[in-house]
């Protein structure tokens, strides 16, 4: 079978190799992966920003969907032919995150899903909504669960709230879709007027170009209940201005990098800043229920074949995408 292997840091160290098809042991499941999706995390891992002591070779990617090809002894949660996706942290089932769960991330702590076949523990899988293609279902495990956790588990976005989302990456688009689903109003920021237009078509009621309005936090000051912060140090100061007193900032990404932030506004405005690192299987399942009940469709930007993994990652690095970048396996 075909597998993508990272032999060391750097996109240039990715290669497609042949490996024998794995066999599922007791309570394990062999999944024929049909599609994977990319997250910015992939670039951070390959640059050594996630874990400088990353072990290699590594099979990259956390997000994959496919069908159950074979089940090992004692498997009860899935059966052959089921359409499934892998959960991001293989050992975060429900409740609060634990040390053990945080060390079970696919494509980081353990081998990921950029392969034709993977073997996973049955507890590390969820069924995917029936109306989604494998390409669409593969977008869910990291970005969608992160947005769901931020808005509807750790934060309780409800009808009438205002949510601010940044840009047009995977988490931000899911956040927009979930916020709208819950009956909230959405303000979106982007550096591109064309992308702002598309964000409005998806339901954002207000768009702000952060290039022409660098002080966008002032523009919306006090009107935002919840900011889904994907920028990190470069945008947090504006997010803290934007959010209302007693509001919430979900810190889920560091696209603009690391650095210093003045924390005074956090206390003066009684802001809850919550770190969100994806979510549990229980959150994934609750989210899938909402996605299915509302026939919600993820936004897929572009689909690459497995052999173009490097091109796909470079495309993500360029920032030209609107929605998820998918790898067909």
């Amino acid at each position: 079978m075909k597998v993508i292997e990272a032999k060391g840091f750097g996109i240039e160290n990715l290669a497609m190799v042949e490996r024998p098809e794995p066999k599922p042991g007791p309570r394990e499941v062999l999944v024929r992966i049909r599609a994977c999706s990319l997250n910015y995390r992939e670039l951070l891992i390959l640059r050594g920003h996630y874990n400088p002591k990353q072990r290699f070779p590594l099979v990259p990617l956390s997000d994959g969907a496919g069908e159950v090809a074979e089940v090992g002894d004692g498997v009860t949660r899935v059966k052959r032919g089921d359409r499934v996706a892998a959960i991001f942290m293989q050992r975060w089932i429900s409740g609060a995150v634990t040390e053990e769960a945080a060390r079970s991330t696919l494509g980081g702590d353990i081998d990921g899903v950029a392969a034709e076949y993977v073997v996973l523990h049955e507890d590390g899988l969820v069924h995917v909504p029936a109306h989604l293609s494998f390409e669409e279902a593969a977008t869910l495990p990291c970005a969608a669960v992160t947005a769901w956790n931020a808005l509807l588990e750790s934060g309780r976005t409800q009808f009438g709230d205002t949510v601010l989302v940044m840009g047009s990456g995977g988490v931000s688009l899911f956040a927009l879709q979930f916020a709208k689903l819950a009956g909230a109003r959405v303000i979106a920021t982007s550096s591109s007027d064309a992308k702002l237009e598309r964000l409005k078509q998806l339901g954002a009621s207000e768009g702000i170009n952060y290039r022409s309005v660098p002080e966008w936090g002032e523009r919306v000051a006090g009107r935002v209940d919840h900011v889904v912060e994907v920028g990190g140090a470069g945008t947090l100061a504006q997010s803290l201005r934007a959010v209302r007193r007693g509001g919430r900032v979900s810190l889920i990404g560091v696209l603009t990098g690391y650095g210093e932030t003045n924390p005074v506004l956090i206390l003066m405005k009684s802001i809850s800043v919550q770190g969100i690192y994806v979510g549990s299987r229980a959150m994934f399942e609750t989210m899938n229920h909402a996605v299915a009940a509302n026939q919600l469709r993820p936004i897929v930007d572009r689909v690459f074949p497995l052999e173009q993994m490097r091109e796909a990652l470079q495309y993500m690095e360029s920032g030209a995408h609107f929605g998820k970048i998918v790898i067909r396996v």
Partner: protein
Amino acid sequence: MKAIRVHQFGGPEVLRLEDVPEPKAGPGQVLVRVRAIGVNPVETYVRSGGYALKPALPYTPGTDAAGIVEATGERVYTHGTISGAYAELALCDEKQVHPLPPQVSFAQGSALGIPYATAFRALFQKARVIPGETVLVHGASGGVGIAAVQLARAAGLTVIGTAGTELGRKLVVEQGAHRVLDHRAPNYLDGVSVDVIIEMLANANLAKDLTVLAPRGRVVVIGSRGPVEINPRDAMGRDAAILGMVLFNATGPELAEAHAAIVAGLQSGVVRPVVREELPLAEAPRAHQMVMEPGAYGKIVLVP
């Protein structure tokens, strides 16, 4: 000015149209020229004298009006008044009035105060619904029911409504319900499983409600006309919760949150009150009879 006055508790006939002095707005208050008054079941309970809340006699009933602020000309709706809503002028605390967008009629505006705030509080502050859950709205063709269907649908829920008439069921579907049931039919809840129930007539339905809840389900009791026997094991086995509420218990911040959301819903078009009939203020006794009759079909409104 003309106003309805109640000098003694009793039947609808105690609602009398009289001339009373015009109220004057003090600091922090606004005087609203009333164009429409929403009639709610609770006003009939208060009028009869058999309710926990007993105003000092004589009094002018009502909390929900829509009209124009005398001082500024602003279109507003109210969720409460100081002087009573069944009148040509209503004196309000400034926190009791909210902006009414131009596309919403005064009659619709008078249907917001109690029905929409009750539905909002039940769904979001009590049941704490999340998208993807299923909600059953009993009596979905009445004022609170219509509000609950519209808000639940806009919050990503799967919505099942009940109504006792064909016309009512058609209305419930038009408001966005995925499914509608006839609560006059025998065994109409067979095969139903829901996460949340908005219960307007707990004395009739609560025992059965507990048997159609999914695990971790919630029943929000917002209306009851008598006692009821339930089997607590139906709740235990499901980790279910029975949540009672009356809107009167909502705190200031809870009400402010509800009305901020309702105003946002008016602007986005999600909140669309349905008016069944507009009657002259003098016909308040008839309005009180109609609001308690079965077969609800939208809001009954009085026009001064």
